[in-house]
């Protein structure tokens, strides 16, 4: 994103959002990131459901994949995982 930063003259008026939150990598703040043990994962989807940042991608079938660009490392998924398949790793 940094290569696209514009100056104050080019910003739209009124503090209107002009970048989608998808393009805003807020995961940069994270101190911890989840690591999923695919063998332990039972694909229940609780991590996907509980994630406050919608930072899990899941098609309802395979193992959910954390989107590290938006994961802030809160660790809720680790706590909720019924099979202890998620471990928070220090970045």
């Amino acid at each position, binding site marked *: *994103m*940094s290569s*696209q*930063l*514009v*100056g*104050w*003259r*080019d*910003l*739209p*008026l*009124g*503090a*209107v*959002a*002009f*970048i989608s*939150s998808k393009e*805003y990598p*807020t995961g940069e703040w994270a101190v911890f990131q989840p690591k999923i043990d695919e063998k332990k994962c039972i694909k229940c989807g609780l991590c996907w459901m509980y994630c406050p940042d919608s930072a899990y991608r899941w098609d309802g079938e395979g193992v959910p994949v954390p989107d590290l660009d938006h994961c802030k490392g809160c660790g809720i998924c680790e706590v909720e995982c019924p099979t202890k398949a998620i471990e928070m790793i220090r970045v």
Partner: protein
Amino acid sequence: MAVLKKVEQVMMALNGDEAVAWAVKQSNVDVVSAYPITPQTIIVERISEFVNNGEMDAEFIHVESEHSALTAAWGAALAGARAFTATAANGLALMWEILYITASTRVPVVMAVVNRALSAPINIHNDHSDTMGARDSGWIQIYSEDAQEAYDNTIMAFKIAEESLFPVMVTLDGFTISHTLQNVSVLPDDVVSDFVGVRRIPRIKLPRIHGDKEIPLMFNPKYPITFGPLDLYDYYFEHKVQQNEAMKETFPIIERVHKEYGEISGRSYEPVFMVPYRTEDADAIILGLSSTMSVVKKVVDDLRERGKKVGAIRLRVFRPFPADFLRRELSKFHAVGVLDRCISFGGEGGPLFNEVRSALYGLPSRPIVHNYIYGLGGRDLPRSLIVKIYEELLSARAEPEVPVVKYVGVRE
């Protein structure tokens, strides 16, 4: 103020609050949200009567606090409505958060603030601590001298706000103006309605990286947009600079709207930003805001009769601060006394004094500037004290290193 009668106007006996209510009624306002607080109460009482009687086609939103009052006005204006609210003192303090949000999202809400002292102790009388505290929130601030001006300023405020995309605060002194009956020339409804026109919705252009798309700056299901979301160290600074630079460009808009209003009403308010009174050959002048300056002008007349070279300047617009006009106007005087009806705790004098003094600092020759803090909580400023201020200014010697800040009319 030159009075050239352009259209037939009706003389009505109105107090300042009623004058504002009439201006709002005539300005095609769509939404009024308000919470009554002394001495603003009459404004919203009258408006609610107008709406109830079907004299005014607006939505009146009864809210549970001032925080909600401004939030509702902001939301309504974002949806394309012309919105108005009114408050005073602690009510304005409760709006603080939304004051900044309204200004930063460039929403043209108009608000009447009836100046009143802030607690504690509770005091309902006139004092400028409330609006002076809001000076950095990004609102245009216009100070009225009397009920007539409160009426005129409110009508002009809608046009200034919508053309500049800044919210506008029209202030009037608590009780002194708000509750005092005065003859007010009221324009015909259709003239005001034509003057303010239909609320225009500005369009914004998204940056080139997003395909140069142009969309209306409002809530609209066709073009969903988000106002004021997260903006960290990467863009917040740019947004604030943009806002500040845009505010400087409101000077010509404010001037033009005043000129246009002068043409229909005959009340020109020229010059717009600061009104000089008998300053031609003056040595000492008093600079201040709002209704107090009426008394100061009377004292100027008295002293002129006694051969004293004194004058007065009333500042009408405090935000944006007309520093250039001030530099041009003030450099020729020997001494300037700045009246502040507000204390900036722990600061070097009141807020008006601070800005006036720093505006003049860079001049090769500048007047001596003294600060007089007066009238807090509605304390009277009698003519005798104003005479004393003038005497002090006339005999003031070269500026000392430490600014002279004095309390006027306080018991020692």
